[in-house]
């Protein structure tokens, strides 16, 4: 009884989220809805007696895999959304046909296996406790496939590392090296680092150059990227109206 209440509340939520995942435009929204679908799946697993699987589903998929997805997606800005133009001609009908076919296959298979039948053997499988039962299966009957899968995953991780790795030609300069370089470059102008952007007490945006003591702008205070892009605001408008540069002799 509680299980069916849970099912009728969480089921529709999961389906709506799954459909939303396909239909929303922003990639981050889509990823979030997928994370929600995974959490509802975990609820179902737990309700059906697979406690360990449910918790691990959240730890691994929601906590790690989806987080990595988000990590990448976040590098795309807030208002970036997927383009809906087809890059390969005829891709959409093929994809829709394949999806419907696969879905139909799954529904009919699972339906034939479980519709109108009572599931049996759960108590037997969980007799020694859910975790213990699963551990026993994994490390006795299925130990070979388990190890093969882990070897596969390690190979994949190694492969990714090898592909992304590059040999440095010169060792990376440490903080000390950089500091020595600044002091021995012959000029002390940048020894303490470049000046920060912004006009003191008037404006502190990154695209406004700092003012030098005589009132002129200091282009070195703007990031190289912004400077080449031309995203620089004239800082003279933030100058004080009358800058008195004369030094008064104190009596």
């Amino acid at each position, binding site marked *: 009884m509680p299980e069916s209440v849970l099912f009728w509340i969480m089921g529709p939520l999961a389906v709506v989220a799954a459909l939303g995942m396909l239909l929303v435009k*922003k990639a*981050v*929204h889509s990823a*979030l809805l997928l*994370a929600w679908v995974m*959490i509802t799946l*975990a609820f179902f697993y737990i309700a059906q007696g697979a*406690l*360990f699987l449910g*918790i*691990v589903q*959240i*730890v691994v998929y*929601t*906590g*790690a895999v989806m*987080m*990595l997805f*988000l*990590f990448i997606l*976040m*590098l795309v*800005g*807030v*208002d970036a959304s997927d383009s809906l133009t087809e890059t390969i001609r005829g891709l959409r009908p093929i994809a829709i046909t394949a999806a419907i076919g696969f879905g139909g296959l799954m529904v009919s298979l699972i339906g034939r296996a479980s519709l109108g039948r009572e599931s049996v053997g759960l108590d037997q499988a969980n007799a020694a*406790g*859910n*975790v213990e039962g699963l551990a026993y299966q994994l490390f006795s009957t299925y130990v070979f496939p388990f190890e093969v899968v882990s070897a596969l995953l390690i190979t994949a991780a190694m492969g990714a590392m090898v592909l992304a790795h590059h040999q440095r030609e010169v060792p990376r300069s440490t903080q000390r*090296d950089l500091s*020595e*370089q600044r*002091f*021995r*470059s*012959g*000029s*002390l102008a940048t020894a303490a680092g470049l000046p920060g952007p912004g006009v003191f007490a008037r404006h502190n945006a990154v695209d406004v150059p700092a003012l030098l003591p005589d009132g002129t702008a200091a282009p070195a205070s703007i990031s190289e990227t912004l400077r080449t892009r031309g995203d620089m605001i004239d800082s003279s408008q933030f100058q004080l109206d009358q800058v008195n540069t004369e030094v008064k002799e104190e009596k």
Partner: protein
Amino acid sequence: MSNSELIATDPGWIILVKGLLVFATCVVLTLLAIWAERRIVARMQERPGPNRVGPLGLLQSLSDGVKLALKEDLIPAAADKIIFILAPIISATTCFMAFAVIPVTGQVSLFGHQTVMQMTDIPVGVLYVLAVASVGVYGIVLAGWSSGSTYPLLGGLRSSAQVISYEVAMGLSLVSVFIYSGSMSTSEIVAAQGQWWFAVVLFPSFVIYAISMVGETNRAPFDLAEAEGELVGGFHTEYSSLKFALFFLADYVNIVGVSALATTLFLGGYHAPPGLGFTENWLGGWFTAIWFFAKVAAFFFLFVWLRGTLPRMRYDQFMQFGWKVLIPVSLFWILVVATLRLLSQQGTSRTGLLIFSGIVVAIVMFVNVAFDNAKKKKKNTPRPTLSKPDFAVPELPNKGSDRV
């Protein structure tokens, strides 16, 4: 009766009362924690700290909370509105959930009903805490992304990378606890520490957990996600009013949460320290809660002490420390613990155990020496010579060295 059997007899209203108690305790603890942190840090920096509102300044955080709630609530124009609102809600709801599996007392009588102060006792309780924590990170990451500005985004990215990395080390440090107690349920882990606390038996695991819990909660010296010197406020730069208050609340509840988990896993949970076991029956068993909260408070003091003492780490050093030190060390330690456990279960003689420990010590010493040699070699490699500066440099006392 074991904890899980006792909890199974709880009627619905008792569960409701426990839930309310968890919520109320966490909120009150947050208020006290903020006050305690400000007072202790002030003490460490030789200034009085908040001492005006209420006795000893105790009501300072309450008045700050009221003030925060009355502030104007801003939503930036560039923000993704739905997620901007959702993020603090995710943060503030998940942080409470971990407390559902933490046993706070032994057997007590609550309104005439025999029970333990633990909402539910599932066989994978500790994993459940990790799962909830990993969902909680979504709050921070989404807050950073949805603000639509650069500093929060950097804070969110840092936070997600940081929490994923340190959760690996944290999970690995828990494995040896599971091996020793033979269970992943919090109440059984507490029961397994009847004789020796795991902080003593599994000291390396305890140290690794203690370090990674600071990384996991984004606290100094690992608070790179909100490093104010670099990122203004990090992920919560754009947040104001109640939404910011929710992040603040989540932050402190999380600290109490990881401290409570550390207490449960390594410091014997609600049990009295060795030699004081007779106190556990005082007040009809409720005295155990005092031991529990005393241990949590000790952990909280550690957090504050760290914040008052250590400067913030540089981001690359922090990541290197996690991946190149904590994770390999905990993997090695798991191997040692698992082998020792197996040897003792198979009834190996004392000499066998001694030989094994000798081998482990030899390996550690060898690695240490190898590291030292590598360091020396790196130090002795000639550095690229740079031309002498043409501006005046004062005479150095140590003229032999070309390093300034």
